[in-house]
């Protein structure tokens, strides 16, 4: 019956064939170290070089936006007609503009505006978007219907129109942009959160929590929101650069911040006018806004891969 004899050599001693039975502990053991979903995501994010570099760049830009304007004695609105159009030098690190204002100070002042917009976009997404999305999905029926129609109307009106209409009522400036964002900035988040919670609502672990007698509050805080966090973070990270760009764009075409206030869009508009002779005026704010936009996008991409491995190619 056995013709495997040829394989058998002397090294098979008899005691090797002693029955020792299964290794009970081993069969239920899990080899990999324990790891929470958060830790796991963080590990994956760390492996993504692009995302890490973007994160570092963003931190540097944020720090400079905070301390940059205080690093020399100039104020962003301080004009000095004797020192207009100076190329970068020891006194003015990045040169001066047509009114002799210090470009270094103005750039970081402008970056503050961009970061304020970023912060505002994130906050609106979180407060209005997540709340309305969650309510819409959980309540369902008429509430859901009404909210979704409202969102559809808001999506239907172009952002630029909202801003122009607001300018008819208010001065152009940061307040106007803020109000415009409050009106329309959160709709995408609301839609995504609603879809996700709708999906989760029917899942068995939610039913299990319900059958254990869980209250609605517990359901939202312990089961629904934690499972939506990944999506919320990812979407927020993609909203931020587009909000920053929108502000810069509005300022560039003159519907946003006005002189003497500085914003990256205003600075780029200024630099654009003197592009032929004073290219540095355009170059520096352009570099900053490109760095911010690209970094946010790469970081968002990295976060998506880290938080939602299924989306990876």
């Amino acid at each position, binding site marked *: 019956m056995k013709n495997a004899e040829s394989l058998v050599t002397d090294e098979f001693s*008899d005691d090797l*064939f002693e029955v*020792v039975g*299964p290794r009970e502990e081993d069969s239920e053991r899990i080899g990999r170290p324990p790891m929470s*979903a958060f830790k796991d995501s963080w590990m994956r994010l760390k492996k993504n070089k692009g995302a890490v570099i973007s994160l570092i760049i963003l931190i540097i830009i944020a720090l400079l936006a905070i301390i940059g304007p205080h690093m020399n004695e100039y104020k962003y609105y301080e004009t000095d007609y004797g020192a207009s159009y100076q190329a970068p030098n020891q006194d003015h690190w990045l040169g001066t503009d047509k009114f002799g204002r210090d470009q270094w100070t103005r750039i970081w002042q402008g970056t503050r505006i961009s970061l304020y917009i970023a912060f505002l976009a994130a906050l609106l997404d979180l407060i209005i978007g997540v709340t309305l999305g969650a309510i819409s999905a959980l309540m369902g029926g008429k509430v859901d219907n009404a909210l979704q129609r409202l969102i559809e109307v808001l999506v239907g009106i172009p952002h630029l129109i909202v801003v122009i209409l607001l300018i008819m009522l208010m001065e152009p400036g940061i307040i106007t942009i803020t109000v415009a964002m409050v009106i329309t900035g959160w709709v995408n988040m609301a839609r995504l959160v609603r879809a996700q919670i709708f999906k989760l609502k029917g899942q068995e*672990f939610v*039913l299990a929590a319900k059958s254990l007698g869980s209250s609605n509050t517990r359901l939202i805080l312990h089961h629904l929101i934690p499972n939506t966090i990944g999506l919320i973070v990812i979407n927020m990270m993609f909203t931020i650069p587009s909000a920053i760009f929108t502000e810069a764009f509005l300022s560039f075409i003159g519907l946003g911040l006005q002189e003497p206030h500085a914003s990256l869009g205003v600075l780029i508009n200024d630099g654009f006018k003197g592009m032929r002779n004073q290219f540095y005026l355009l170059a520096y704010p352009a570099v900053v806004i490109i760095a911010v936009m690209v970094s946010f996008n790469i970081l968002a991409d990295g976060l998506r891969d880290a938080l939602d491995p299924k989306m990876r*190619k």
Partner: protein
Amino acid sequence: MEKILEINDLHVSFHTYAGKVQAVRGVNLYLKKGETLAIVGESGSGKSVTSKSIMKLLPSQSAEIETGKILFEGNDLVGFSEGEMEKIRGKEISMIFQDPMTALNPTLTVGKQISESILTHQKVSKKQALQKTIELLKLVGIPNPEIRINQYPHQFSGGMRQRVVIAIALACSPKVIIADEPTTALDVTIQAQILDLLKAIQKKMGTSIIIITHDLGVVANIADRVAVMYAGKIIETGTVEEVFYHPQHPYTWGLLGSMPNMETKDELVAIPGSPPDLLHPPLGDAFAERNDYAMKIDYLREPPMFKLSETHYASTWRLHEKAPKIERPSLSQRHVKAVEQTIGPIGEISDKQMEPLIEIKHLKKYFHVGKKEVLKAVDDVSFTIYKGETLGLVGESGCGKSTTGRTIMRLYDASGGEVLFQKENVHEKKNLSQVKNFNRKVQMIFQDPYASLNPRKTVADIIAEGIDIHGLSKTKEERQAKVYSLLETVGLNKDHANRYPHEFSGGQRQRIGIARALAVEPEFIIADEPISALDVSIQAQVVNLMKKLQKEKGLTYLFIAHDLSMVKHISDRVGVMYLGGIVELASADDLYAEPLHPYTKALLSAVPVPDPLVEKQRERIILQGDLPSPSNPPSGCRFSTRCPLATDLCRKAAPEWKEIKSKHWVACHLVD
């Protein structure tokens, strides 16, 4: 007969961010002309990967065929380019996929999808292709093919779609068909239809078939030869009779022992533990860690293939001449046990079961879909569950068994009728503490072990959820102690408490789900298909655990499932549901020995039994057609459209729910 396909020493691995997963580790296979080879194994054993490598359908970025040859009619497919493979796929070798719901393109008509493959591989005109398509649809048993070819997949039912998928696979008369779990997603009555169809086609066209499955009943029904896979290797191969009647590898013993057949009443042979992690495959015999008879050498060295006969090979050190004689444990012992046990409990139960725990009276649950359509998921169901018993509820998908469970649980509000739990109406308006009280007494175990645990929580928090909600422990230490003891009850250990669900295997997750339900010390547990998503050997673990807990804690179960042999095994009484109504209810032994309702009879005869001799001789009642839509049920008896015995009376009047014999209830006009 000549070998049409041969696989030599195939190694396939996947590159993941955690490392290299060796999914297939040296597979040798051959397929002869006109035969059916079954590849059996648990999930993750590499059976699907093997079949996909033959078609070269593995994702090229992550998967890699490291070494090995796949010889098809003497040509090595491994070296073939994508262009050359395109000529093979569909024309020479074609594939039938598991899920007919996703295997068809929803935006193309069925006719287009079938003729597409004819037009790619054969030089025919569109008209001829269309003609061929109609013939194919006739061949796979689809009525009115002339009309059906212009319909879209969503207009077909699951079973019909699988027929279409088979028609596509047959379109160019391939020499080999690979069927990857072709019936897993289907109900038993439909499964019987499809298996018969495959057999008929093979007879007619002489195709060779590789069928991949985890269901040994299906294997016994259809296969000529079997290859058992474990951890990326073939550990035993032979003809069906050899493997089923003279299995050699301990894993094959376990696999065969963990399948209940209609007679066994004793504890199932569960294989402890879970399959090894193929990221770091074990050194010796991969099964050693779960093998009761593992020898020292099993942990050190890989066993070679021992030849037992021309066709029968097994890879286990047990067959080495120096190995001690170990006989297959099951058969003799199990039979003795079975006899003892069947005499025991039956008398006991009938005396004890007088106290009803839950009474369900004319329960109805309707869902409103669309403006006018009402889906009658549960329509007038009445039964009683007695204290300490297990009531099984079986039926095909869409028959309303899960909805019944959830409505009893109060996850859904009832549309009519009432549920009395310990004489109290469940669906009455209640205040918060009453609801909480009810939720403590009645608990649920869910079907999908992957969806039923919150992925963001640790196992300790998941299990303790009920403890937290009901404030069952005062201090943190008490809570932790409770979690540890629950983990122990379900056979897991303390170290598992701080881990997250994704780190566990399906069976372990299901046991965590059971621990969560047990945490509130319930009296009644509704188990909604608790084992249907698990592998056979793991199913036995869970079922044995549930039986043990019932004995220890005096639990009452409502066990919902579509697997009749498992239901028979665990239940004291069994109810059969069809299209929202319950058609027969009797003690498990009664129902299986003497089914009265024609639907029960058909259902029982459709279940494949893991015994090739029985399976090949058995006469089947094959039900025609599919389940009608529950939103538009047939008038009269709901089963009348598919019932082989239906009369005019059946089509006009709904049958009465009556007790034919003592404790044997049936709803059928034909039974008196």
